[in-house]
């Protein structure tokens, strides 16, 4: 049995840990923080700019998709669908045709797989829809979303504001406040009673994503039945409920399948002195009680890019990998990293580690640095995930490939 250590608890790290556990291996997941799922829309973007299955074969060879390979992507998606099916939070969609979902701003989000409550908002579905805001929720403005959708030529039947049937008159709600309320069946009953008279003649209704956190599929089906229409959700500002739900599902399964979690300490890589530096022996955890060594046969780095701490951009113009100080592919000098508009592609987005098709980090000469260290997810360079619309697809495919190689 191979002892596997995974660093990072985002989509990549959690998914990799499930893959390892699935194959009956011991796996420890160490993480300093929580990863970026709650900041995300909770869908699986594979390739936003074109039909994913067609676009991927034309990428340059250093792109993470090419390195992981199409087979890994397909196998990863299959396992992902299995996980979400079993968690009763299914993700309809396919790699051969993107869904087109409305965002809270009324822009169009092309994505391959989405949780059912989001997928039901596909803009090319043909069923007319109404958008509704919820009074006193600060993160959803249905008029704005509808105006922008209409500007793009998409028909929005009507726009509504729905009340919150609460006795006290709070004026300020976050999506997570409402999600906890929607988890309760007596709350849904009351909501349906108050809302139903306002929804006459509406077949499909779009709401901000607030329909439950613990058992969202049940909340969706229950509320649809009570209201007698199709509901869809639109993800809002972080904390984004669909992202949180996915995190809950992956963590729940990880705990149930015996993944050992160590969360909180900073992690520093440790090299095996007996192997002439060709192998890593594990990591050192900077715990409150002092440094603690954790050894493993295989280490998978899934620490993410700049946002999650895998890459550290320094004032002196250098970019460092935070655990093993692995070489990073980047332009030296702060002046090169950003452009003048946040909506443009940013050079820093493409920085990261260079790896071979075994997901092993490479040195300047293109040779693998360690035999038993693998990298997956946001830490990899060579892709501008934001502009490509490829973030979650890369996370899943590279995690799959890294585990597949590591376990032989």
């Amino acid at each position: 049995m191979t002892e596997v250590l995974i660093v990072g608890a985002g989509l990549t790290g959690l998914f990799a840990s499930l893959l390892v556990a699935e194959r009956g291996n011991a796996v420890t997941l160490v993480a300093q923080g929580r990863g970026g799922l709650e900041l995300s829309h909770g869908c699986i973007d594979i390739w936003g700019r074109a039909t994913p299955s067609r676009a991927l074969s034309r990428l340059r060879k250093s792109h993470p998709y090419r390195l992981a390979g199409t087979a890994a992507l397909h196998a990863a998606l299959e396992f992902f669908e299995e996980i979400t099916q079993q968690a009763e939070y299914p993700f309809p969609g396919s790699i051969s045709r993107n869904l087109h979902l409305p965002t809270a701003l009324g822009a169009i989000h092309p994505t391959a797989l989405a949780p059912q409550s989001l997928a039901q908002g596909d803009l090319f579905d043909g069923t007319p829809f109404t958008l509704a805001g919820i009074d006193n929720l600060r993160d959803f403005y249905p008029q704005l979303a509808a105006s922008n959708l209409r500007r793009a030529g998409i028909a929005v039947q009507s726009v509504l504001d729905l009340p919150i049937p609460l006795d006290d008159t709070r004026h300020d709600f976050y999506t997570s406040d409402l999600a906890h309320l929607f988890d309760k069946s007596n709350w849904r009953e009351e909501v349906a009673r108050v809302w139903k008279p306002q929804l006459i003649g509406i077949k499909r209704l779009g709401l901000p994503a607030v329909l439950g956190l613990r058992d969202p599929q049940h909340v969706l089906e229950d509320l649809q039945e009570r209201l007698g229409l199709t509901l869809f959700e639109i993800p809002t500002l972080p904390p984004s409920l669909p992202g949180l739900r996915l995190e809950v599902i992956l963590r729940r399964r990880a705990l149930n399948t015996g993944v050992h979690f160590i969360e909180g300490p900073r992690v520093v890589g440790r090299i095996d002195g007996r192997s002439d530096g060709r192998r890593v022996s594990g990591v050192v955890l900077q715990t409150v009680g002092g440094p603690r060594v954790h050894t493993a046969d295989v280490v998978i780095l899934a620490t993410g890019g700049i946002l999650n701490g895998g890459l550290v951009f320094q004032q002196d113009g250098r970019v460092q990998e935070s655990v093993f100080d692995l070489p990073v592919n980047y332009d030296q000098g702060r002046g090169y990293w950003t452009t003048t508009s946040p909506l443009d592609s940013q050079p820093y987005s493409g920085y990261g580690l260079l790896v071979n098709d075994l997901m092993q980090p490479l040195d300047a000469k293109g040779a693998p640095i360690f035999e038993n260290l693998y990298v997956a997810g946001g830490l990899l360079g060579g892709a501008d995930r934001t502009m490509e619309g490829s973030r979650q697809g890369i996370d899943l495919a590279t995690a799959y490939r890294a585990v597949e190689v590591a376990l032989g």
Partner: protein
Amino acid sequence: MPVLSTQLLVIGGGSTGLGVAWDACLRGLKVVLVEQGDLGQGTSGRYHGLLHSGGRYVISDPTSACDCAVENRVLRQIVPHTIEDTGGLFLATPTDPIDFPDRWFAACQELGVSAEEITTAEALRLEPALNPRISRVFRVQDGSLDSFDLLHTLTAEIKRAGGQVWLRHRVEKLILNGNTIVAAEIRALDTDELLTIGADFFVNATGPWAGQVASLADIKVPIALGKGSMVAMATRPIHTVINRCRPSSDGDIIVPVGTVAVLGTTDVEVQQPTDTTIEPWEVDFLLAQGEILVPQLAYQRPLRAWAGVRPLYRPTTGELGETRELPRSQIILDHADRDGLQGLISVFSGKLTIFRLMAEQVMDLVCKQMNIAAVCHTAETPLTMTSRSFYKLPDRLAKLEVTTSHDLPQVVCECELVTRLAIEEALRFASTLDLDEVRRELRLGMGPCQAGFCAFRAAGIAHELAPTAPASGGLTPFLEERWRGMVPLGWGHTLRQMELTRRIYLELLQTHSLPEPTK
């Protein structure tokens, strides 16, 4: 082409121009002020926030020092709601010239600039975050002054007195009759219409644009442009203005303003008034200098950087790059006297602290030339909004906390505690959907997340108030403006914050795929 006439046309809506217009109103003149952008978009809105005690100039520029000392007291009387009385300290560190503090202190006493030496122990008791290795400390009467509050107050006051303030109107031509300026041709930038304003007298108060405006009348104004960069830290480790007690140089001041501390400044000669690009070395330098005064700044997050362009006077053509050496005192050019052109005065250079005095001197000259006997009343006329107290974040928090749970207002900008109600009021008052205008009024989006969360909400609220306006037209420019201030600090936590903004606006909201706003 529509033609209007007035007695005085003031060009430029910064502190100097608004000060001149206000002074003129109090003297009973009919005034129109035109500004090509919004209030304070030039140098007045791009400064470090310091209300000078005068201490900075006692050695290099004694006249300015005296003027600052006097005007500091005047402004505390007439616009107290724009001023936070932070007080100031001048610190000598072990690396500064050892004889300077004594010379400096003597000059303060001679010029009437209030200064008092305190022990370093007392200074560290007042401000525990100071470098413990400081050798001498003097207390002065510095403060911080919110220039946007000042400009908004002046504008309201001018309008109340019957004057007019036209924003987004650019002077394109000065029309001469013989050797007298009689009218200006002005373009309304919102509608692209041209109109002509005839006036008896014209004041060019356009700061770094003074040379360009004067050239419309074929006059050369010897102006040098000194770009000064500043960095705001995300926290406020000191609550007193901290000055370095040494000859004036780059990076010698920290001003606590609102929720941040501003590190100032550099001085680099530039060619254009709009040339406010910040070089990486400027930021590195300011941070390094700031750490000498307050060591813990090394561990704090820089929030935002910006640069203003000082309009300085350089009568002879000197070498480039020496703008630090040029005097900071106000320059008033009487073009009748100097160029034989009647009806135009240019005013520039000076400091925001002495804007009222500059206006008084300009209007004395204008009245003399127009044969008007009116005298200045600005020094003893408090502005009407003085009943309002200086804005502080804790005051907003206290207000939110006393509200009962039955009436909890919706907080749209968590960093600066801006409520939905306040935004709605500001949008109605400003009769604009420009979120940047709302920002200047309410500090929306000026906290640690730099509008990452509130920009979307504010765009949603603005759209509800004006559903016919182009949807989210104001969102992109607002995000881009906030981004520009972070780019020079794009490393470490600030770059992570920038990436979070991109995750939200590009991946979650897909802002970049919206159709172009239609006009």
